[in-house]
């Protein structure tokens, strides 16, 4: 893709007079544009031409101003006064600002138009920028190419494709409006978030862009959800009517051994689309509705007091081609076990009150079987149970008896309670539960201290913000006068660090580091921020509307760069403005 920067430089920029209320609408418009190469090289002669529309036969006085790039020489002012075009030589790479003022005969207020001309040194490297507008904007993400050299680039205007607003109606087969939640899943749009709209009356306005899958979840609990794949926003009518198909019934029974299991929730997912949810009756009967065909995943959630795990049956050969009856799922008679114990702080001595314990097992084998016709399919079980330790650190006692569906290996996550000292952190333990006598000791893990220093490329202490992106938390720290920082984080986890100067005029590029591992207290090596080149401007729609709160990230798209990882990431301001920094080459 050609850089929008290039397009920007080549575009005509115009401005009309008289934006004050009550002032007569302007009759003339001024545009300026570059003739020749949109991105000239250093040493080139640049020719800018002004065009005034709506002033045929009238005398026009022009005045031009050209300012060189930051640190550039010379800064040219009031050149080419009186002429329709100017010519100037660019002696330095970067962004030159060009402003033209035109006074049209008979008008009291001059027309003003500005443009930026990006001058390349020839040593620029190609970078890519990804812009992800907020999900609520309905605008799709976009990627932009930009050439970055040794000089700052100002006045960039990056455009994202527009979204469209359409009115969506969801109706059932009888033509009645069906209150629904609709979900739009972007297709081939990296970084885009899934968006939802609640059509409480069965209709409403939604924002669409690009290509997306539409999932409709009726709120009546009776109609079957449906997916409409690969919908193109541009080809939709402004009034979009979706009529849901009647669902195909899939029915059967759920048993525990030979006994019907009541109050179990049953659902089938086919090609990612859920069916309705059915609760089994006293005879263990269920019936769900699905609108899709293909490979099915059966999910059976037993009632909480059954002590059974959730059964998930995901077998490639379990295919649904139409309405199906007589699915027979039977839970095995698992032998539940009870567990209890105590949880301590990281000193392994002090009881940890109000610690949260989460027991998990994600692959319990032999949990049950589905019989369809003559074919049997095996299910696996998943079990998750949370509990809190008491004031003495005990758990699984009395009313809080913990029953696990079967003996075996479980993962336990232990999180400190609110009263725990700040240095107590999360721990993960693998416990093996026996068939009898399960008194299990658990403990928290002491947080690790991560400390470091941030300096500039010329070894000056830097005021910087440090963002720690860990598995369980995002933390923020700010360097002190000496550029030092310290963070208390959970031990034994992978994390990313983003180190960004607080002062924009520091001319330093941030550091973004990923896949780091916390392994105990660590004094990290000195972080040296490289000298930076700034890219600043604004994000807007093709209609020129600012796009605030967009995530913008930049990386080098050339194998000559030391890294092709993300170099900086910012969020556009309320007026769509941004400033990114990349290391100076």
């Amino acid at each position: 893709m050609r850089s929008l920067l290039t397009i920007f430089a080549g575009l005509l920029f115009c401005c009309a007079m008289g934006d004050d209320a009550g002032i007569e609408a302007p009759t003339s418009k001024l545009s300026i544009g570059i003739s020749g190469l949109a991105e000239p090289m250093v040493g080139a002669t640049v020719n800018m031409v002004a065009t005034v529309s709506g002033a045929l036969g009238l005398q026009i006085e022009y005045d031009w101003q050209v300012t060189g790039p930051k640190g550039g020489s010379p800064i040219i002012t009031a050149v080419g006064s009186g002429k329709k075009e100017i010519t100037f030589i660019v002696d330095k790479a970067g962004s030159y600002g060009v402003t033209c003022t035109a006074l049209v005969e008979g008008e009291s207020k001059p027309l003003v138009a500005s443009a930026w001309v990006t001058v390349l040194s020839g040593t620029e490297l190609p970078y890519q920028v990804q812009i992800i507008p907020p999900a609520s904007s309905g605008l799709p993400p976009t990627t932009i190419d930009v050439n970055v050299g040794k000089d700052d680039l100002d006045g960039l205007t990056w455009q994202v494709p527009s979204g469209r607003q359409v009115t969506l109606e969801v109706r059932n087969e009888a033509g009645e409006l069906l209150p629904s939640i609709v979900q739009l899943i972007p297709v081939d749009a990296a970084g885009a978030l899934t968006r939802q709209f609640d059509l409480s009356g069965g209709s409403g306005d939604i924002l669409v862009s690009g290509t997306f899958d539409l999932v409709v979840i009726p709120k009546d609990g009776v109609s079957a959800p449906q997916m409409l794949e690969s919908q193109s926003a541009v080809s939709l009518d402004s009034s979009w009517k979706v009529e849901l198909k009647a669902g195909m019934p899939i029915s059967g029974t759920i048993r525990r051994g030979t006994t019907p299991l009541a109050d179990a929730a049953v659902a089938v997912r086919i090609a990612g689309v859920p069916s309705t949810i059915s609760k089994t009756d006293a005879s263990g009967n269920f019936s769900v509705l699905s609108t899709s065909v293909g490979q099915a995943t059966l999910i059976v959630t037993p009632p909480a007091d059954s002590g059974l795990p959730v059964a998930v049956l995901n077998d490639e050969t379990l295919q649904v081609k139409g309405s199906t009856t007589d699915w027979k799922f039977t839970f095995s008679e698992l032998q539940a076990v009870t567990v209890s114990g105590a949880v301590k702080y990281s000193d392994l001595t002090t009881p940890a009150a109000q610690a949260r314990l989460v027991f998990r097992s994600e692959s319990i084998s032999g949990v049950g079987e589905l019989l369809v016709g003559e074919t049997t399919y095996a299910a696996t079980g998943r079990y998750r149970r949370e509990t809190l330790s008491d004031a003495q650190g005990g758990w699984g006692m009395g009313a809080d008896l913990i029953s696990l569906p079967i003996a075996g290996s479980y993962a336990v996550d232990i999180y400190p309670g609110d009263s725990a000292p700040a240095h107590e952190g999360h721990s993960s333990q693998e416990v093996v539960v026996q068939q009898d006598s399960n008194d299990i000791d658990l403990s928290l893990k002491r947080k690790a201290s991560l400390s470091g220093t941030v300096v500039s490329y010329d070894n000056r202490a830097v005021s910087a913000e440090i963002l720690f992106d860990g598995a369980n938390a995002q933390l923020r720290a700010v360097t002190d006068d000496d550029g030092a920082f310290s963070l208390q984080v959970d031990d034994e986890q992978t994390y990313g660090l983003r180190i960004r100067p607080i002062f924009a005029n520091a001319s330093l590029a941030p550091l973004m580091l990923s896949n780091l591992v916390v392994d105990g207290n660590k004094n990290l090596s000195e972080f040296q921020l490289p000298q930076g080149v700034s890219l600043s401007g604004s994000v807007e729609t093709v209609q020129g509307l600012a796009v605030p709160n967009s995530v913008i990230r930049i990386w080098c798209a050339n194998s000559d760069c030391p890294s092709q990882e993300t170099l900086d990431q910012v969020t556009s301001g309320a007026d769509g403005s941004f400033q990114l920094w990349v290391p100076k080459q």
Partner: protein
Amino acid sequence: MRVFIERSFLLAALLVWGSCLYWAGINHVPAAEIIFDEGVDGVAVNGAVYLTAIGTDPDEDRVTYRWYAEVVDEEGEHHTVIDIYGTLGKTEERRPVSTATAFSLQIKSRGTYTVELVVSDTLGAESTRARTFEVKNQAPVLELSRIRLDNGDIDATVGENDVPGLGHYLLSAAKSTDFDDGLGCNANHTISFKLLKPAMNPFTLWKVVKCDAAANEVLDKFEFGRASVSEETDVEIEVILSDLHGGETTKIHKLTLLPNRPPCIQETSPSLSQEKVWVPYDIEGEEGLTFQIVRLVDDVHETEYRWQLSDSPDGPFVDSLFQPGFQLELDAWSAGAVLGEAIYLRVIALDGDKTMPTCDVGERLCVEGNELMASCYRWVTWEVLFQ
């Protein structure tokens, strides 16, 4: 009578002839006068004085001009102005700096300047006129600007000088000028910052930051902030910028500190108005939904987010095990969701003081116009359906 008239006429003729003889034989000295431009009284180093010569010659001869200039500096040393650009030096040679009718004398140093104009006619007659003017030190012009260093989201909406007390500010004199001395990092100037009001310093951050020559800074800066105030507090900071020649300018920077106000969630995904949200019950694939704070305003950007879950819209809400910041990936397995049963997800934004005053459930509009209301914290709750 006739003889008398003839004799008188003859006498007059003789007088005219004699007079002509007299004027033809004696050259007269031209007159010299120097005109300064109006700006001479306030001229400073790096400025210029525009000088104009008025030379008149009674004989109406063509005249030429020679300008000489010297300066006695502040130490009493005499220097000759060697050229029109004001280059100073000591030389025995008396050399004109200009021979034009008018020229600009560039001023390169302080002191008492004497400008001498010599007007000569073509016969060598000349006269001299000397005038003096003073070039004194000019005090620097102090321009202050305050910028916010932390990312306060609505600072601009609370008035130019009404600022959140907990903010982090930089007081900069970078736009100051000194016409005769120029500004440069660690050279020629001193700048001081002093709190005049209130009597007790409310700021926990109060320090001078040395200028950074590498960043093209010219004066020390001042960082202050992090003041926890319970009521509006007027502040006055006296800033004095002095040059090395006794020039000094003082300004008082005034602002009003506002008590901390709670953050306000303004935009989310799913949207604020969407109360019911669907999350796929895909406990094996763990496909979920991203909940996101898209826009939040706060007077001090130290926001923490708490994502909480409950089985009931009325709570009690329990902190989610994951506190990932402005967004949460919620899936059925992590949430401990039960197929077909709703879970209520709430997100609360907290800032520095972390206290949670009571708040009417469902009250969401915490910004009226541009003003962030100080009544209470706000939150967003979604009913999440797992299917």
